[in-house]
């Protein structure tokens, strides 16, 4: 008797969970009926403007970003008095920790900021709305290039609207570079140059760089050789030749062993930008994204320069990465209004004067042009670099497949092991392939 009761309870439970978790439905882009109450969501059915509407918007970031975003929201509310926007914001890891249960409960905010590393997970499970029907209606994309839009595409659907564009750069301190006898980094430099400069830096008592994140720069390296990190369907690694793995990681490992790049434990102790090795004048360059340039320069308090990555085949390797997206929740009851806000965010010039490219270089051409002259010189440099990159890059990789987080962890483990000399790159290449493929195979 008791057993039957227990079984029934469990069954009811499982069904209940299934019901609310599948609030996203078929994922074919249709609007599913909301399966659970969304508190703080709507008060009236969506429709034409006069009906008062409440939207929830969520983003991650730090103090400066919260401040200006709130101002932009205020601007929008004043222009659209029938809309009330309730902001929810947090730091990066808290944001994702909070979002996941919300998704499970069918309770995502109407507008949510999205990142390449998570978008596949959320979109692939029907949590996000396909934005394609809203293009050229609520969202004016006449001024936005297709390559900028493509970053948010999965298959033929658009799940996230690109808020700004990033590209990879080498940020360096010219004063420190002079200590190894150069005024600026050589144009058309290659990975061999990189190794030479590393040796020179070590001789001068400096690190050449502060560590290259494997998932980013190995992916770039693969692209230079015409390969991709992930296969197009995301079910396995995208490159067959393990020699590429061996070459790249031997090179970075040797830099560490030589003393031109910091060991993993030195990196682990860095608390934030102020503690960065370049800021402390112990390293010549930092390899990262273009939207991190201004922050680094501010922290360093002295002029820095930017430079493209080493060749060969820079154009093949380079790509424009959407720094982040705004997506619309599938469980939102005010999708048109949400889309209108997104439109405002990317197209309105006054709003962007507040945003100042913090979320990446704006994708709308008119906005870029209007904004550039008003910006401080460091930001202008970033804009110009992006313009250069637009001409010198090839189409970006599709968004990371599900399981990418685990693959990244694998990279870190093996990268550290190689740098601590606990494993050879050849052995690491083989084991990495096995384990990564096992992880990605679950996507079949």
């Amino acid at each position, binding site marked *: 008797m008791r057993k039957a009761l227990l079984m029934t309870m469990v069954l009811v439970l499982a069904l209940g969970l299934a019901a609310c978790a599948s609030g996203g439905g078929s994922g074919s882009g249709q609007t599913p009926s909301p399966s659970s109450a969304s508190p703080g969501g709507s008060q009236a059915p969506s429709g034409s403007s006069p009906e008062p509407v409440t939207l929830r918007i969520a983003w991650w970031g730090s103090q400066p970003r919260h401040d200006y975003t709130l101002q932009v929201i205020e601007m929008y509310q004043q222009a659209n008095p029938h809309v009330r926007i309730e902001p929810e914001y947090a730091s990066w*890891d808290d944001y994702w920790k909070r979002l996941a249960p919300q998704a499970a409960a069918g309770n995502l905010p109407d507008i949510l900021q999205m990142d390449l590393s998570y978008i596949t997970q959320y979109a692939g499970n029907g949590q996000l709305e396909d934005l394609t029907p809203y293009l050229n209606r609520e969202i004016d994309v006449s001024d936005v290039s297709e390559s900028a839009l493509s970053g948010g595409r999965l298959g033929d659907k658009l799940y996230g609207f690109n808020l700004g564009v990033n590209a990879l750069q080498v940020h360096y301190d010219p004063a420190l570079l002079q200590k190894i006898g150069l005024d600026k980094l050589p144009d058309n430099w290659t990975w061999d140059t990189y190794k030479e400069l590393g040796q020179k830096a070590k001789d001068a008592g400096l690190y050449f760089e502060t560590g290259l994140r494997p998932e980013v720069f190995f992916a770039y390296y693969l692209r230079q050789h015409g390969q991709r990190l992930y296969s197009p369907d995301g079910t396995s690694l995208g490159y067959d030749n393990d020699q590429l793995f061996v070459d790249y990681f031997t090179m970075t490992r040797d830099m560490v062993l030589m003393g031109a790049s910091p060991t993993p434990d030195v990196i682990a102790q860095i608390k934030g930008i102020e503690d960065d090795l370049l800021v402390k004048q112990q390293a010549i360059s930092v390899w990262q994204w273009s939207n991190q340039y201004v922050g680094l320069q501010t922290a360093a308090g002295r002029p820095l320069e930017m430079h493209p990555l080493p060749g060969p085949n820079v154009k093949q390797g380079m790509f424009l990465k959407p720094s982040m997206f705004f997506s619309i929740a599938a469980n939102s009851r005010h999708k048109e209004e949400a889309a209108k806000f997104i439109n405002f965010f990317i197209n309105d010039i006054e709003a962007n004067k507040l945003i100042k490219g913090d979320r990446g270089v704006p994708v709308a051409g008119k906005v870029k042009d209007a904004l550039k002259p008003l910006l401080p010189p460091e930001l202008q440099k970033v804009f110009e670099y992006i313009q250069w990159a637009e001409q010198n890059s090839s189409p970006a990789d599709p968004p990371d497949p599900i399981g990418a987080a685990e693959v990244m962890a694998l990279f870190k483990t093996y990268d550290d092991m190689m740098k601590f000399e606990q494993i050879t790159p050849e052995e690491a290449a083989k084991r990495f392939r096995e384990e990564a493929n096992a992880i990605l195979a679950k996507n079949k």
Partner: protein
Amino acid sequence: MKARQLRNHLAGYAFISPFVIGFLAFTLIPICASLVLSFTDYDLFSPPRWVGLDNFRKLFFQDNKYWKSVRVTLTYVLFAVPLRLVFALLVAMVLNVQVRGVGVYRTLIYLPSIIGGSVAVAIMWRNLFGDQGIINLGLIFLGFDPVRWFGNPTAALWMLILLAVWQFGSSMLIFLAGLKNIPVTYYEAASVDGAGPLRRFFRITLPLLSPVILFNLIMQTISAFITFIPAYIITKGEGGPLDGTLLYSLYLFRQGFVYYHMGEASAMAWILLVVVALLTALLFATSRFWVYYESKGGA
């Protein structure tokens, strides 16, 4: 007789009813849900898919990191709990006096515990153990070699162990309360009979304190097994170097909230629950040999 017994039973239930109700309302369903989930493949977005014992099989037989996290956690518990309790008891006894200003000492020593789980502390602790941090400076001063706390998996774990020990304040407080409950008259009588401090400690303090010792032992063991925030912040969520600080709960968190393998995370949680429950039951079972209760109402 029967009516009286029934009344006793009802009275008992009356008293524990809040717990029962609260449990049934808020905890039972989520716990059952997590149990069911441990047999599914669930990524939070699509409906859970039944996979039977697959999660457990994968954890036990295919996951190196799982066993690493078990080893790391066991090492952690083995050192952190005894060290912490010993310090706590010693300091509690030292502070169990009627000296003026002892309240100040108590508050100050308790301070590390209070700020305990906070982010600021974890960051600060990490800083102390940096290559040029104060700990290494101290080691050099005393003539030892500096330790690469972040580069050596064992050393890194000791960072966490030391953090736990540093925060012995809460156990100390409980011991203090327990010490206070021992009537002074027992000690007085013993002194009169010629017992020295060591004998007083072993014959009076320890036995009368034993329920409290049991409590602290169990609580600290459980809490050591589920330690999460310090490890998360100090290792930036990664459990490095080389998984040296990959505590069980940290790995659980990663499985659930970074890789979205909620099914495996639930499985891990239930394994932990069973292990800790068995350990606790063991502690309780052996307690009848060393714990002394003044009241018969419950051993």
